[in-house]
């Protein structure tokens, strides 16, 4: 791969299954050392895209290159340059840590002379020193997950695809895992992580949001937060919530209102109700208001907003 080429470049990438377009003219660019989050609802086309990028599925239209190789014409070369880890971890529970590593080392054709050193690296990365002979099924979730990552990088791939890698893992272990991901990225590895854990999207340098096979938005977490709500988010503490929701739902300038715990999350746009007027507006409707304060939108807010706007636009066109 030449030094200036992006690690992953997809242009107009499309996959159709009999009469159904799973991935629809997707453009994606991932640089070396970048961690990109691939976010979207179930059925949005995440897995299909990843499978095309891994050279496992032939695109119907468009092109993609991974590590400089064309996924349609050179799938073998692509597969040698990538690591892949799926949500199920694909480890053998009745084999030991060492046996799993040896097995995957064989699959990835790690040269004999290099194997011991690679295995040591994977074991220390996963924090499994002293547990090389433990059966994998006896390990806690976080350790299994780090071992699966260790297996996926035995052949030192410059590009890593992680498909929902962290479900059900402890918060502390999850944070350790993300430290490892960033460690690998610092060494130049390009990483595409699919997830629908919104908290996890925060760990990515950039986020690609897809829905209905199309790219809806792409940017850093802060960029997406700033530009996609169409207004400012406020947290409103008031009772009764149901009546407040109804009143705000039809008020001018209110882009969105939703119950969040014991409060409301209200997005206010330009030229309508302002945050200062909000307490009065609600009080006039017999709603008691405790406080109104600006809130930082979560990536989930952003996601839901973007997906629903895009769907509305598509339905209208």
């Amino acid at each position: 791969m030449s030094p200036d080429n992006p690690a992953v470049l997809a242009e107009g990438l499309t996959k159709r299954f009999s009469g159904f377009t799973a991935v629809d003219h997707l453009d994606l660019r991932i640089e070396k050392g970048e961690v990109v989050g691939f976010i979207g609802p179930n059925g949005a086309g995440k897995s299909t895209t990843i499978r095309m990028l891994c050279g496992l599925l032939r695109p119907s239209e468009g092109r993609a290159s991974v590590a400089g190789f064309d996924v349609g014409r050179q799938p073998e070369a692509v597969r040698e340059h990538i690591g892949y880890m799926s949500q199920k971890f694909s480890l053998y529970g009745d084999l030991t840590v060492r046996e799993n590593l040896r097995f995957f080392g064989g699959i990835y054709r790690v040269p004999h002379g290099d194997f011991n050193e690679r295995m040591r690296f994977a074991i220390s990365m996963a924090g499994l020193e002293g547990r090389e002979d433990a059966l994998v099924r006896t390990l806690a979730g976080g350790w299994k997950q780090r071992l699966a990552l260790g297996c996926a990088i035995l052949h030192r791939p410059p590009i890593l695809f992680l498909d929902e890698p962290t479900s059900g893992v402890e918060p502390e272990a999850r944070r350790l895992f993300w430290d490892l991901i960033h460690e690998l990225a610092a060494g130049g590895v390009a990483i595409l992580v699919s997830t629908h854990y919104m908290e996890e999207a925060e760990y990515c340098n950039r986020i690609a949001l897809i829905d209905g096979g199309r790219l809806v938005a792409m940017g850093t977490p802060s960029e997406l937060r700033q530009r996609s709500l169409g207004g400012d988010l406020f947290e409103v503490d008031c009772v009764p919530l149901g009546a407040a929701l109804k009143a705000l739902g039809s008020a001018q300038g209110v882009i969105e209102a939703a119950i969040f715990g014991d409060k409301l999350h209200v997005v206010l746009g330009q030229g309508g109700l302002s945050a200062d007027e909000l307490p009065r507006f609600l009080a006039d409707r017999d709603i008691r208001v405790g406080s109104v304060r600006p809130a930082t939108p979560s990536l989930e807010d952003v996601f839901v907003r973007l997906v629903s706007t895009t769907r509305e636009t598509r339905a209208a066109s």
Partner: protein
Amino acid sequence: MITESNESAVAVRGLTKDFGPVRAVRNVDLAVARGEIFGLVGPDGAGKTTIMRMLAAVLRPDAGEIVVDGVDVVAEAERAKLHLSYMPQRFGLYEDLTIAENIFFYGALFGVPRGERIARSQELLEAAGLLPFRRRLAGQLSGGMKQKLGLICALIHTPRVLLLDEPTTGVDPVSRRDFWAILYNLRESGVTIVLSTAYMDEAERCSRLALLHGGQIRRCDTPQHLKEAMPGALLAIAATHPRDVRDAVSGRPGVLGALLMGDRVHVRVDDAERRIPELRAAIADQGIADAVIAPAEPGIEDVFVALLGEETPHEP
């Protein structure tokens, strides 16, 4: 906001369950008021499902008392089942039956009279937005729709207490939000909801939370109070190369933790006022010019990690 009531919807005292040598649940006390959406939060293996199953009268505790809607669940399991409804992680839908047939079947199972069953199922289908799909086979539904159907089946006998074990695992955010809108409507109609979740962001939507770890409740409070009680303060430091910032601040006096995010670092410090100038200097010393330090609102996950970090070493 918790409405005062002299009787809790769910009251648990000294709940304990062992599986062989594994102490799955240890001496758990809980009081859930009527109309609450109460969250049991914790990683896999924390004891969430075991507690749920005991509350639902499908698993007998080794010790402890459970009262749901005034009924002693341990002594009168069958009677308790008329007052509560339990939706396990894998709700048993019949994939070769339609939506309407599944609901009808569960209605019969719970002994709901036929006329009432039809009216109730119409009302629930409408609220969940599933009415147009009622003739579709359950096997052909998306994850989010299956989840809604499971919920409808669990609600067909109008229970007063709803127990949901990880109801939104594997459900995407858009469907998840729809699902929560239904839960809030149920709460408005007086149903008490106890749910478990491993999603920390979802936990924020509950009225109160119990943070579970190793079969014990470590903290129990509103999300707001839990955040306020987090030891130290959280700062967000944004920079083009957040990794360099992390390296510059890690291990400095007063830094309790530094977490690398995509475009910033979250740093937990003992005292924000005192440490911000120190950190600013340390970052500048490393030649990083574009770092911006601002206070950040902790999430429930930050609270969890901060609390457990002080109490327990790493796994296992």
